[in-house]
């Protein structure tokens, strides 16, 4: 453990939303694994921090949850995007891209 980078504050929420957007409905453990896989195992999610983040998104109304049965027959809580959640993904993605572009100009001034 500890070889990967910790997830930055604030970006975890976007990753969760993005994961749910592509995967549809998923349980907490699945979301965590998926984030690690998508990052090519460069990121290490402290699974404990995932649940407060999920709860926060749910309180804000971007995701909803219900109990379901996993592929290997375990009871698990499944999360999915709500309609406002989908809009939030779009908004956050756009903002993130803008920020990234701005930061990129600072990092590579000669290209602009």
């Amino acid at each position: 453990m500890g070889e990967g980078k910790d997830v930055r504050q604030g970006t975890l929420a976007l990753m969760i939303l993005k994961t749910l957007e592509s995967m549809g409905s998923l349980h907490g453990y699945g979301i965590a694994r998926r984030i690690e896989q998508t990052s090519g195992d460069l990121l290490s999610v402290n699974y404990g921090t995932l649940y407060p983040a999920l709860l926060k998104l749910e309180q804000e109304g971007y995701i909803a949850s219900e109990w379901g049965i996993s592929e290997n027959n375990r009871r698990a809580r499944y999360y999915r995007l709500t309609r406002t959640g989908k809009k939030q993904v779009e908004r956050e993605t756009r903002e993130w891209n803008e920020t990234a572009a701005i930061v990129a100009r600072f990092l590579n001034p000669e290209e602009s």
Partner: protein
Amino acid sequence: MNLRSFLLRVAGVFRSERRDREFQAELESHIQLHIDDFVRSGMSPAEARRQALIKLGGIEQAREGWRRQHGLPAIESLAQDLRYAIRAMRKNPGFTCIALLTLTLGIGANTALFSVVNGVLLNPLPYPHSEQLAILYQKSPIADQGAVSYLNFLDWQRQNETFSSMAAFRWQSFNLTGEGEPTRVSGHEVSADFFPALDVKPVLGRLFTADEDRVGGAPVALIGGGLWKTRYGSSPTVLSRGITLSGVRYTIIGVIPESFLFYNGYGTQVWTPLGQWNDPTFRDRRVSMGLNVIGRLKTGVTLERARQDMQRVAHTLAEAYPDADKGAGLTLIPFKQDMVGDIAPFLFVLLAAVGFVLMIACANVANLMLARANVRAREFALRSALGASHGRLVRQLLSESILLGVAGGALGLALAAGGTRSILAILPDAVPRSQEISIDLRVLIFTVALSLLAGIGFGLVPALRVWRPNLTDALKEGGRSVAGSRGRAQNAFVVIEIATALVLLVGAGLMIRTLAALWSVDPGFVAHNALSFEIAMQPDLGSDPTHIRAELRKIHDAVRNQPGVVSASVLAGALPMHGDSEVPVWKEGEPKPATAAESKWTLFYGAEPDYLTAMGIHLLSGRFISEADSEHSPEVVVVDDYFAHKYFAGENPIGKRINVGMLDLKPEIIGVVGHVKQWGLDNDSTAKVQAQIYVPCTQIPDRFMPLVGNGISMVVRTAKDPDAQIPSVRKALASNNAQQVVYGAETLEEVIAGSLAARQFSMVLLGTFAALAVVLSSIGIYGVISYLVGQRIQEIGTRIALGAQRGDVVRLILGRGFALTMTGVGSGSVLALILSRQMKKIIYGVSPSDPATFAAVGLLLITIALLACFVPARRAMRVDPMIALRCE
């Protein structure tokens, strides 16, 4: 955090148990899924579980993070703190009771007094835009705030440019006859603009018209809601009915709301039009018959602007009517100030005093908290070692003290609600507007703020003390090692308490000296066993002077012949300390003064021969009025010694003649009597008109006789309790003439007491506060010295074991107490010297830095403090060295 999530989290503070279980299940399923994955990749189940838990970062931590997000941690820990605080308070009932009692008294007293200040001084008067209302007085050589003559009022009303309306009113009481026993009702004669100026609308009917406010207008009257209710059962048909007031039949045209409040509270019950009065004296510009004027400023006009405007009007009038108005001006005062102004300095002194009491209360509770914080030092050190942040511990202590403060505030509010009512019930005349005093929103906010402030105030010091405790020491030795610095704070509190108590004692002492000084002032008459009352004569007596004079004699005889009555006299003019009636005078041979400003003025009394003995006034030379002085004999007058010295310095006034203006008398001076303090025990020597003359009642000229019949007073000297004499006097007068009404009966002692009511009120309250302060600060010093003894018990034991005498031990302990007390008394004296100067306005006959008062209260406080210290000192003396040493 958006609103939705905030609300969810607030809700999450409460219903968390089910969600907790669900989350527990979710975590378990997470771990299970993770183990499944590891096992699938070939790990042993045990190792898989271990790895899964590591990756989760600990179940407890995950749960804590989730919980934090689920509710609002700030509220939750606050709730936790409060729960804990309540538990701690319940576990320590002694501490809680004393602290609560102290705070309840402190906050209760403050709330009570603030509700008085609020009701009397802060709240606007109960009229729309009451800040626009002002009272206009006539300023003359005899008074800055004098009554206004009717003709001047009419000119003011016509010529001013700054008032939207101006009205005159004159207090007048009436005999209400008709059904049932005749009663005396209090009323006002008012000009037509009176209610419109105050913006008061009738609940029924209409107000006076301008036509009714003139000589020859229809006899109409307005009645108050109270009278409407009691006498007419709130019936709307009252408007078609008549009312007989002092023998005149009036038609009721309207009802004024019961809530209408004027100078005399809700007392006014009838109003009649002022302008119908056709008495020549009333319509004499030089005479002001108790007329007062109120005006409403035009919107946006300042009082200063109105003053200038009225000054201009006064100038015009002085030029037009020099004999009456030359040298006369105006005094403008905001209505509220006129109604409550005199009481303000008293209330502010009391409010400051009660604030000091709360300060002492807080210091006391802070000391108790400190003592407890010491006992709990171990607990705090332990919690700190277990990871509680300092901030969290401070918050914990503060929530405890604020909880105490708020609980004390709630109890104090209840105390104040009851206390205010009972104080005002005892002394209803001490403050104006007392009917309006209640606990309103502003008082509530004041109390809540005070409670929180007090809570923070006394909680902060002990709370800061745990800010950086020495962990190891505290854990090792309990509280003992932090005692040194804590003791300093405790000592400081005790010094503050004693200093404050001294300030309050000085205040109370000065008030007591003031009242003692006032009581020892000779009023110029003997108040003991004497009573006074007013008589409204039979309304249809007519204006025949002979008839009125005969009636006056009958009244005198009816009262005089009652058993128990030593002497009695009718008095026309004003009773001492009730009012005044001034006339201009000049010596025989001198020209008549051309204007009021150039005149010499004197108070005028129309008296009977018995007046001297009834009042107990000293005869200094010559003789007093006798039975032989009648309307048929030469005019005579008796002057007081002030008059004699002022106008006949170095001469014998007896045998000289003076001219009495207005009455047009030219009597010979037949005697000189002692001066009576007409203006009250304290104010008389600064009054503008102090000279006094006595004219035989019967020699008052014929044309003034109807005015005399309008209202006379009577003074009666009794053999025994004057109060017991009132019913028989009443009965005698009723059997003399059933249509006469007797009212306003008081003993002369009550008259004097009434003039001192506000001071007495302040003295009682200041005395109570000072006593409270002394009790609280002795508890404070007792606590500190007891603590000191507890701390040094081993040392004392050792000393005794080594041969110290018990007396030495007592001296050691008392010495500490004495040092603290003296520091407190010293600093308190300095503070008192500065603050007592603020009392100048309300004290009399004593200097604000009166050495006797300071010395007396200082000694008193030192004695009480030392007595409080003596209890623990005796305990120290009895320390058994063996037991004390074994404790080590």
